[in-house]
């Protein structure tokens, strides 16, 4: 290795060793183990044997898999743009120099800090058909005869999950975009105002291009996170009604639960590669690496 003396490497090794051990032992080895296991017929109480791509073949012929893949992708497609737009609006508001800025920021952060599984319980009550907050407002809005079956209908369950997820994750998006916004010098806006640019022009011509890196970062993190959605689905809809909201994570988990580790692993591997390919693509498109230096 050119330019690196053995002495320097030996000096650095102990500092990096604990990190390496933990990442390898508790993340890399388990992922490899899952990939290997996905090629075995591995069901509790049955003799484990190699099946090659058997689990994958079964998967592509299994409607349950396609339903759950479809839901997961649709969920990403709907919730991520919604969260980015809401997060952008929140960030613009939080960037304003108002007297209560600190308090506003703290309040907006609260949903982010509360564990999703706990807030999902609150959403479960909010969506309660007879007594929940959601239908309380819905019927007050003049729909007194037709409350929404939030968690029991396919569209209702999907909408419920999107809203609950947006509530939990918009703060994160807002914080990331806010960092991009607050780095823009005030001068630029003042100059543009002198030149006669209106509010909207100042936003689209100055703010938007300059927060592009922040938007891409938020997009990557949110997409990967939404793809692996588990907690709120587990608590709020249990994947129902009729499997309509079973995310890939929950789909795989359900197979682990009944002891079919081989098939569950195959599902996990598919999810793993979808997340992997998507994040690589984003990084390439957004030239993420350049922004970071």
């Amino acid at each position: 290795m050119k330019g690196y003396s053995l002495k320097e490497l030996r000096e650095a090794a102990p500092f990096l060793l604990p990190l390496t051990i933990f990442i390898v032992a508790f993340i890399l080895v388990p992922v490899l183990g899952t990939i290997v296991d996905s090629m075995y017929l591995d069901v509790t109480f049955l003799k484990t044997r190699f099946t090659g791509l058997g689990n994958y073949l079964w998967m592509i012929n299994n409607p349950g898999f396609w339903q759950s893949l479809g839901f997961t992708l649709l969920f990403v497609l709907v919730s991520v743009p919604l969260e980015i737009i809401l997060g952008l609006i929140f960030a613009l508001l939080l960037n304003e120099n108002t007297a209560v800025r600190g308090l506003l920021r703290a309040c907006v952060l609260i949903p982010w800090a509360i564990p999703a599984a706990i807030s999902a319980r609150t959403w479960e009550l909010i969506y309660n058909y007879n007594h929940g907050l959601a239908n309380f407002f819905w019927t007050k809005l003049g729909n007194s005869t037709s409350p929404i079956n939030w968690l029991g209908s396919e569209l209702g369950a999907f909408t419920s999950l999107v809203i609950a997820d947006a509530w939990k994750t918009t703060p994160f998006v807002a914080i990331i975009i806010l960092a991009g916004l607050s780095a823009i010098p005030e001068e630029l806006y003042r100059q543009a105002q002198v030149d006669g640019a209106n509010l909207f022009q100042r936003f689209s011509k100055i703010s938007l291009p300059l927060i592009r890196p922040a938007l891409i970062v938020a997009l990557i993190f949110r997409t990967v996170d939404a793809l692996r959605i588990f907690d709120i689905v587990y608590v709020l809809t249990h994947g129902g009604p009729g499997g309509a909201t079973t995310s890939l994570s929950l789909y795989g988990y359900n197979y682990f639960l009944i002891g079919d580790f081989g098939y569950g692993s195959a599902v996990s591997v598919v999810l793993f590669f979808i997340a992997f390919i998507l994040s690589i693509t984003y990084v390439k498109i957004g030239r993420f690496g350049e922004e970071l230096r």
Partner: protein
Amino acid sequence: MTEQQIKRLLIVAGSLFMLIFSLAPFFYMIATSLSSNPYFLSAASKLSLTLNNYHAILTTPSLHFLDYLRNSLIVSAVSAVFTILIACLAAYSLTRLKIPGKLFILFFVLAVSMFPQISLISYLFKVMTEVGWVNTYSALILPYIAWTLPLSLWILVSYFNQIPQDLDKAGLIDGCSRWQILRRIILPVAAPGIFSTTLLAFIFAFNEFMFALMLTTDYHARTIPVGIALFQGLHGQTPWGNIMAAATLSTLPLVILTLIFQRRIIQGLTRGALKG
């Protein structure tokens, strides 16, 4: 209306919406926890305040609320401390020492943080079963350390990068070893950043759900998010009052931390995500 007035109107209306959107579920949770009837919104009933729900979860041992909360606090705190120790060592070497492929290491760790948890869980479950650790703190703490390391490393690297290299050089000239420089010079200077990162690692561990769901079986190690998610009533009907009281009490520490350290949390999150 002038542009200035329109802007002000938009800000006030938008901020109000933002506040209500963010806080309404939280207040609904608190209101239900304090209400003698969880369905106080129905036309037939009205809100009457009570502390019975809190009394119930705090004094009924079979509900295990305090066990879950204690488990969560211990597991999150221990894993946060270890994560930060390990991340400090790595961040120091990545910002100060000559190491081949530094950028690759950082991006590799970032990629690791994007792995879906479901792709680790079955293997972890098997190993933990084999060594008999299922339903112990160790079964959670070890994966949590690995799981919170990437983010912590990125944040700390960004903080350490800001500390002038001259401090190290001065230390080396004075005859300090690398360890002494880290302990006596870098750590004290970076203390505020390290504190923010510890806070974030704690919050992340406290939020974790899937590992805890799969690797614990009862109140001996089960954490509060799983405890509350699986909380069922004894008599068939969901005890909303009790659940919301438990939710309120267990989120209170996080909410207080957020309100006090809002600035630090925002700074830490931003550094982890935006700067390298």
